[in-house]
């Protein structure tokens, strides 16, 4: 997956985030988002116990006990707060995070997410994925349109284990933006030079769209 595509996805999701929101960013593409927020003040939550995560520190300020959920060194912004894991997940599970931006292995056409386990491979990690899926007020998926093997990641029905019954609200890929409306997937924007026919080809999930959507790009 090209860095240009990753940046494109991050930028597009950054546009969806509003001043003052509390946001939890998953590993991978979502971690690029802070670079594209412009003047918007957001509050980043890290599930290992911090609200108000700031950028990567200079080398002299690195402290292994001030890290993100991705276990990278971080800083704290003015007005940050620290708490333990149980209170961090009370915040997440209790619906106090405005937006969670998550990577996925698959998302189905109803918005159901698979982002933790690949059958046949060792399933030894779940982390906070299911808590975020269950608890965030809004879930935005950041993903490439297809997996490395070329298979669609936006599928009719999950073939990988589900991360929970709670559905995603939006999917942003390098080609397009989709939303979910009462269990139906809808194309709202094409953000590459892909044609609608090509997009349908790259997508296993069934989605609706209006002509305006396509021609707007």
């Amino acid at each position, binding site marked *: 997956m090209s860095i240009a595509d990753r940046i494109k996805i991050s930028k597009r999701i950054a546009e969806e985030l509003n001043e003052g929101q509390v946001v939890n960013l998953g590993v991978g593409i979502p971690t690029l988002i802070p670079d594209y927020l412009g003047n918007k003040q957001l509050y980043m939550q890290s599930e290992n116990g911090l609200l108000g995560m700031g950028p990567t520190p200079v080398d002299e300020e690195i402290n292994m006990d001030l890290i993100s959920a991705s276990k990278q060194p971080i800083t704290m912004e003015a007005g940050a707060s620290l708490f333990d894991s149980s209170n961090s997940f009370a915040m997440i599970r209790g619906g106090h995070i405005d937006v969670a931006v998550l990577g996925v292995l698959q998302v189905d056409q109803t918005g159901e997410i698979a982002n933790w386990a690949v059958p046949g491979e060792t399933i030894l990690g779940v982390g906070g*994925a299911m808590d975020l899926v269950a608890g965030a007020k809004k879930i935005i998926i950041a993903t490439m349109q297809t997996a490395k093997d070329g298979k669609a990641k936006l599928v009719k029905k999950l073939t990988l284990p589900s991360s929970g019954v709670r559905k995603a609200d939006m999917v942003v890929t390098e080609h397009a933006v989709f939303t979910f409306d009462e269990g139906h997937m809808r194309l709202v924007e094409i953000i590459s030079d892909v044609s609608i026919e090509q997009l349908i080809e790259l997508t296993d999930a069934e989605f609706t769209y209006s002509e305006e959507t396509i021609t707007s790009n």
Partner: protein
Amino acid sequence: MRRSGFNGILHTNFITNERGTSMEKLIEKSEYLHYINDNDTLLVGGFGLSGTPLTLIDELADSSKKGLTIVSNNLGEAGKGLGKLLLSKNIKKAKGSYFTSNRDAVKAWSDGELEIELIPQGTLAEAVRCGGAGIGGFYTKTAVGTKLAEGKDVKVIDGETYILEKAIKGDVSLIKAMKADTLGNLIYDHTGRNFNAVMATAGKIVIAEVDEIVEAGSFSPQEVETPHVYVDYIVMNKYVKKGGKYVEHS
């Protein structure tokens, strides 16, 4: 109040640390192994290597304790932190949320040498909190409809579906704080608090590894993160932090 669990004689009263602070709960690092029995369940604080009781783990890795169940978010990294206990074969089972990042854990599991019980991170934190709080179990939204909910009671409360998760308790908790006062009150280093604060509440015996001991009254009552009632013994960290990482004491 010191809890029972070991009936041997330990010279633990008013040991003085290198700074001259006297403290009843302070013990030598090797002593704490007396409180651990084969097949015990240990609750271990930390998130990756952050907030991890490295000294206590080293002692355990050098011991002959076996059949241990470790409850911790991760098993450290390969050869580091709790990862050492895999190489030293002290562990029978691990309960936590994320083991994929330690290749030794993946290998031990593949080879049938390690049982793993996977628990969502927030469920793990809450289950341990309940264990320390006299709560038998709780209904959570997390993992509803997933493989990790299989076999668990499902209940609809006020129109929302939840699964029942049972409280988790341990025989001994091994935690890491930045500072203790002479009563055993603890404060942690930034996100190093993570699971340590709940692990401190749910073990029958709680051993805290700390970088420093200060006089009681040094912490304001508001800043105490773990009140001394939860802490039975204190062990000094043999590592020192340099460049933001713990290195061997030079």
